[in-house]
C-alpha cells in the first residue's frame, strides 16, 4: 500500500492540566477526503493546529509523505504543501479579495505578474470572480468561506485542512460549495475536514475519525460510523443517529 | 569597602522610592490589564498633576497631602473624560491607534505645560519636609515615609474597588472577556473610561506624594513613567500585586546600581533589566503564562 500523505502517530498536546489531544493516531490516504468529527471541545482544531505547525505536540510524530515534520513552523508546512483554513475566517481585512489570494499565490510564484494571474484564476475557480476588487471585509459569510478556501488553494497544496468551511452557511450555500470541495479532491488534493454538517460529511468523506475529549473513539467509513448508534448518540447528541441514517438514505 | 549599614540604607531608600514607582505603575498596569494598551500619556498626566499640586500649594497654601484628596477625584474625571471622549472614539477600536492617540495626548499635554510654564524647574518648601526618622544608619525623610504608606493604602483601596464593587466586577469581566462582557450588557466604553480614570487618579495621588521631595518641570513625569514601564513589565502587565512588588524591587535595583555605577548608568541598569525581562519573560516575573 502506498505511503499515506499524512500520518499522525500517537500525538499528544497538553494545555496546563488539560490534555487537549491525547495519543491520537490517524492517517489520510493520497487523494482522499477524510473527515474529523466530534463534539465541541474534542480537540479537533487543536489537532489541526498541530498538523499545520501552529502548535507543537508534547509527544508523538507527524509525518507528511513519510517525512517527519513534527516540529516544523507553519510557514514551512505551507511550503511543503500543507494548507489550512481557519474555523473563523481570517481574511486580510484591509485588502481586496484579489490581494488576499495574491498572498497565497506568491508562495509558488515569486514574480508579481505570474502571482497576480494565478490569484485571479483561483478566484474565478471559487466563484469570486465578480468580487476580486472588493475589500475582503465587505464579503458575506459564504464569500468569506470561499475566500478562505481560495487563499489556501493559491498555495497549491497537496494536503488541505478544512476547519468547518461549511459552518454558518445555509443549505443552498452548502449545496453550492460541496461540489467545489469534491472537485479539489478530484484534482489530486488530499483533504482532511473538520465538519459538523453531517450530510456533507456523509456525501464527501471516504473515511471518518471521531474525536472526543482528545481521543479517537471510532473510525471507519461514513456508513460504519453512522451505523454505530453508541458513538453517534454519545458524541453527537440525541437524534444524530437518525439524521445520519437519513443522510445516508439520500 | 561598603559597610553593611550603607547597603541597608540603600535598600531602605530604594524601597521608599520604589513605592512611588509602584503607585505610578499601578495606574499604568490597571489600564493595560483592561484596555490592553500602554498609556503613553501617563507621564504627561503625572506632570500635569504635579503642576496642579504645586500651584495648589503656591497659590492657595494647600498642603500637598491635603490636595491629594481633591486631585484624586479630579484626575479620575480627567482620565474618564480623556478615554471616553478622545482616546476611545478616536482609535476606531484599533489598538495601534490607541497607542498613537495616547502618545499624541502626551505630546500635547507636555508641551502645553511647557508653553504655559516654560522649562523652569520649581520646588516647594514644606516646613516638615526635612524632618523624618533617623535610624542611625539611615535617615528616612517624612515625605517619603508618607509616600510609602499612602501607596499601600491606595493599592488596598484599588483592590477593594476591583473585588468588592459592581464596577470592579465589571472591570474584571471586561479585562477577562471583553466580548462576553459586552454580551451580558456591560457598557464597555464606560468600563474602559472608569479604568482609565482610576489609573489617572493614581498619578493624581502620586503627584501629591512626589511634590514635597521632588521638583516639577514640564518633563518631570517622564522619568517616573519610563521606570513605571519597567515595573509594569516586570510585574506582569495587568497585575496589581505585580506592580506593587515590581515597583519596590525596581526601587532597590536603582538604588544599588546608582550606588555602584553612578546616577546615569544606574538608569541604564533599569532599561537593560526592562529589555531582558521583555525578551525572556514578556509576561513578567509574576504574571501568568499566556
Amino acid at each position: 500500500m502506498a505511503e499515506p500523505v499524512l500520518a499522525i502517530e500517537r500525538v499528544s498536546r497538553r494545555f496546563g492540566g488539560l490534555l487537549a489531544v491525547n495519543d491520537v493516531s490517524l492517517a489520510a490516504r493520497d487523494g482522499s477526503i477524510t473527515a474529523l468529527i466530534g463534539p465541541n471541545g474534542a480537540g479537533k482544531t487543536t489537532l489541526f493546529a498541530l498538523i499545520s505547525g501552529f502548535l507543537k505536540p508534547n509527544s508523538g510524530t507527524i509525518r507528511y509523505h513519510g517525512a517527519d515534520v513534527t516540529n516544523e513552523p507553519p510557514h514551512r508546512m505551507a511550503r511543503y504543501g500543507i494548507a489550512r483554513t481557519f474555523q473563523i475566517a481570517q481574511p486580510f481585512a484591509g485588502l481586496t479579495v484579489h490581494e488576499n489570494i495574491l498572498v497565497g499565490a506568491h508562495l509558488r510564484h515569486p514574480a508579481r505578474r505570474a502571482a497576480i494571474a494565478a490569484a485571479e484564476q483561483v478566484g474565478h475557480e471559487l466563484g469570486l470572480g465578480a468580487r476580486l476588487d472588493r475589500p475582503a471585509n465587505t464579503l458575506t459569510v459564504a464569500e468569506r468561506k470561499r475566500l478562505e478556501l481560495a487563499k489556501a488553494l493559491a498555495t497549491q497544496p497537496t494536503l488541505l485542512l478544512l476547519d468547518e468551511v461549511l459552518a454558518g452557511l445555509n443549505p443552498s450555500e452548502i449545496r453550492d460549495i460541496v461540489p467545489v470541495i469534491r472537485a479539489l479532491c478530484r484534482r489530486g488534493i488530499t483533504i482532511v475536514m473538520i465538519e459538523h454538517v453531517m450530510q456533507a460529511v456523509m456525501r464527501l468523506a471516504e473515511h471518518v475519525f471521531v474525536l472526543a475529549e482528545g481521543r479517537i473513539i471510532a473510525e471507519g467509513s461514513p456508513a460504519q460510523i453512522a451505523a454505530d448508534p453508541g458513538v453517534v448518540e454519545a458524541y453527537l447528541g440525541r437524534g444524530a443517529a437518525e439524521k445520519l441514517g437519513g443522510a445516508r438514505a439520500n | 569597602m561598603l559597610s553593611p549599614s550603607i547597603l541597608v540604607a540603600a535598600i531602605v531608600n530604594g524601597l521608599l522610592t520604589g513605592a512611588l514607582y509602584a503607585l505610578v505603575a499601578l495606574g499604568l498596569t490597571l489600564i493595560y490589564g483592561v484596555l490592553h494598551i500602554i498609556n503613553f500619556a501617563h507621564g504627561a498626566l503625572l506632570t500635569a498633576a504635579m503642576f496642579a499640586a504645586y500651584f495648589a500649594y503656591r497659590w492657595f497654601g494647600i498642603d500637598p497631602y491635603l490636595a491629594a484628596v481633591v486631585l484624586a477625584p479630579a484626575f479620575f474625571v480627567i482620565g474618564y473624560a480623556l478615554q471616553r471622549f478622545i482616546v476611545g472614539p478616536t482609535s476606531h477600536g484599533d489598538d495601534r491607534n490607541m497607542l498613537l492617540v495616547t502618545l499624541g495626548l502626551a505630546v500635547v499635554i507636555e508641551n502645553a505645560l511647557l508653553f504655559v510654564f516654560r522649562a523652569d524647574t520649581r520646588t516647594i518648601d514644606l516646613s516638615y519636609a526635612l524632618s523624618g526618622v533617623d535610624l542611625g544608619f539611615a535617615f528616612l525623610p517624612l515625605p517619603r515615609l508618607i509616600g510609602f504608606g499612602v501607596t499601600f493604602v491606595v493599592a488596598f483601596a484599588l483592590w477593594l474597588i476591583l473585588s468588592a464593587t459592581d464596577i470592579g466586577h465589571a472591570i474584571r469581566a471586561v479585562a477577562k472577556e471583553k466580548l462576553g462582557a459586552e454580551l451580558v450588557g456591560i457598557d464597555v466604553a464606560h468600563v474602559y473610561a472608569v479604568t482609565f480614570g482610576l489609573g489617572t487618579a493614581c498619578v493624581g495621588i502620586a503627584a501629591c506624594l512626589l511634590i514635597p521631595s521632588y521638583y516639577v518641570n514640564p518633563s518631570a513625569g517622564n522619568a517616573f513613567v519610563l521606570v513605571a514601564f519597567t515595573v509594569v513589565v516586570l510585574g506582569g502587565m495587568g497585575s496589581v500585586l505585580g506592580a506593587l512588588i515590581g515597583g519596590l524591587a525596581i526601587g532597590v535595583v536603582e538604588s544599588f546600581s546608582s550606588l555602584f555605577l553612578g546616577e546615569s548608568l544606574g538608569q541604564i541598569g533599569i532599561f537593560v533589566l526592562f529589555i531582558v525581562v521583555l525578551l525572556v519573560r514578556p509576561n513578567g516575573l509574576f504574571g501568568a503564562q499566556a
Partner: protein
Amino acid sequence: MKELAPVFAVVIAMAAVPLLGVSNVTLNFLVVALIAALAGQGWNVLGGYGGQYSFGHAAFFGTGAYVTAVLQVRYGVNAWIAFALGIGGGALVGAVVGGLTFRSGLRGSYFALVTLAFAEVLRISASVAPITGGGVGTLVKLDLHVVALQFQSRAVFYWMILALVAVALIVTRLIERSRFGVWLIAVRENEDAAMALGVNTTAVKLAAMVISGAITAAAGCFYVQYFLFIDSGLAYGTWISIEALLTPIIGGVGTVFGPLLGALVVRGLGEGARMVTGGEAPGLDLVVYGCVLVLIIWFAPRGLIGAFTQLRSRVMGSAGIVETSRG
C-alpha cells in the same frame, strides 16, 4: 519603470525648487522637512507596511548620526565612507533589535515599549560614553569640500537630501510591488493567516526592520553633515522617535508618499505656529503636532493621502484595484 513614474515626477518637480530663486530660509526649511520625511520613510516601511509600530526609531537615526560623526572626527574616515557606514550601522541596529524582539514574538504595546527602551539605552549610553563626546557631544570640523561631503551652497545640500528621499521612495515603491511587500502587508493585516499561507513572518519583519533602520539612519547621517554637530539628545531623543512616526501617520500610513507629504505638512504647521507667536512660544509647535496627530487618527486614520483617495473614489465611484494596497 512605469510604476516609478509618479516618484520621478514628484522628485523632478521638487528638484527644480532651488532654481526658482527661493531664499536660503525656505531652502533650510525644506531640508529640515526632508530629513523628517526620510526618517519617516524608514518608519513607514516597518510600521506602515508591516504594522509594527516602533516608538524608538531614534535608535536608528542616532546611530547613523553618531557613526558618521565619530568615524570622521575620531578616526579620520572619509565623510562619504562614514556616511555609508552610518547607514550600515542603522541596518545593524535594526537586525539586532529586530532579531531579539521578533524572535520573542513581541507585538503591539510590547514592541512599542521595547523599541522605546532600546532608544533610551542608546541615549543614556551616548550621554556618558567618551567615544561620543559624552554630554558635550561631537562637533564635525567645518570643511566645505565635496570630499568632506560638505557644501557651500544650501541648494546642493537640498539636492542631496532630496536624492536620499528619492532613493527611499523608489525602495518603498519597489517593496510595495514585490512579493516581499505583499507578504509584509499580509503580516500587518493578519499574522496568523500570513503564516498559514507560507509567510515566514519573523524573517519578513526582520528584513523590514533592517531596511527601515537603514533608511532612518540615512536621515541621521545627513543631519550630521548638514548641522556638523550631534549630541545624545539630538541623536536619540524621544522627539526623533515621535517625529519618525508622526510624518507617515499624518501623510498616509503605508503609502509611498505619505511620509513626504506628512513631513511638509507637519513642518509647515510648526513653522506657521512659530510665525504666529513670533518664536516666543516654546512648545507651541509641538502642541500643534500632537493635536494634528490625534485629529488625523480620529478623522482620517489613513492619513491625508488616504482621505484624499477616499474622497476621489467617492466622487468617481471607482472600486479598489490591485495596484494600491492601502489608499
